[in-house]
């Protein structure tokens, strides 16, 4: 079972991050964060971009952790899972930086 857990870790992390971003987006739009000005931008953008970057950092940390996995299939799966999780967090979160908030 450890093998399957390791092999899913990075991807589970992506699923978690993805839900966080989607959830924050829904809540932020419902409660009008885009119209709150904070430090040269709006609250919404700050929260979204900060969470995204944090999540990417978390994903990178997971890659580092996954290097400890034992060799063979287990290592292959843990590493790819972590790399895919981190890359997917980066790519699927990309819209927080480039698209408009709630339109």
């Amino acid at each position: 079972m450890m093998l399957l857990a390791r092999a899913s870790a990075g991807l589970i992390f992506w699923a978690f991050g993805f839900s966080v971003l989607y959830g924050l987006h829904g809540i932020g739009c419902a409660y009008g964060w885009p119209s709150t000005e904070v430090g040269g931008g709006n609250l919404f953008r700050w929260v979204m971009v900060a969470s995204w970057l944090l999540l990417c950092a978390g994903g990178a940390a997971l890659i580092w952790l996954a290097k400890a996995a034992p060799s063979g299939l287990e290592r292959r799966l843990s590493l790819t899972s972590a790399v895919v999780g981190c890359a997917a967090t980066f790519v699927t979160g990309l819209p927080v930086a480039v698209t408009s908030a709630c339109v």
Partner: protein
Amino acid sequence: MLKWLRLTTTALAVGGCSGPLSTLDTAGSAAASIATLWWAMLAGAAILTVLVMTLLALAFRRRPTPAPGGTRLWIGGLGVAMPSTVLLVLLGFALALGEQTIARKAAGVVVVEASAHQWYWDFRHPGMAGEIVTRDVLHIPAGRPVDLRLEAHDVIHSFWVPRLAGKMDAIPGHVNVIRIDAKEPGRFEGQCAEFCGLGHAGHRFRVVAHDAAGWTAFQRGEQP
């Protein structure tokens, strides 16, 4: 049969992309940029198809020695690196295009309220003396962005004028906004695009895009 075939091929070659509901015979800026996206994607897809099919066919030719390429080429290169690059570029392009198309705040936007019913559409336009309400015919000024605020009174419908822009659902309890524009004056066909029951096929409407004079006349209440 032969005659049919000839007819079809000529029809395809000459006027293949035109039609009252054609997404490729564009007359609005959103539809036009989406059509460009489509042609670009079609070209890309054609290249990829040819690539895959060639590789597939080559696998069947007689080879004396073991063929080249291990996981590095097939999986690392063709399987991961190639599609990732193509997809990222495409995604960036599409997101940028989407940004231009959505109903962001802009100056000079005309706002029309549309309400969808089984099976007709009511449009409430801004007039000089209050609202002007029409059924199944939407009036807009040509060359100006128009925002439609969509609501539905019974089931879900979808507002779609393929030659002008993409579609947007009208959902009971929610208000959705779609931006359209017509480059030139003219008449354009609209069709409800979300299955809405027995009358879905006939749930049609028409858009009339006026020139500046026609639009002022319409707003004054002079029905054309």
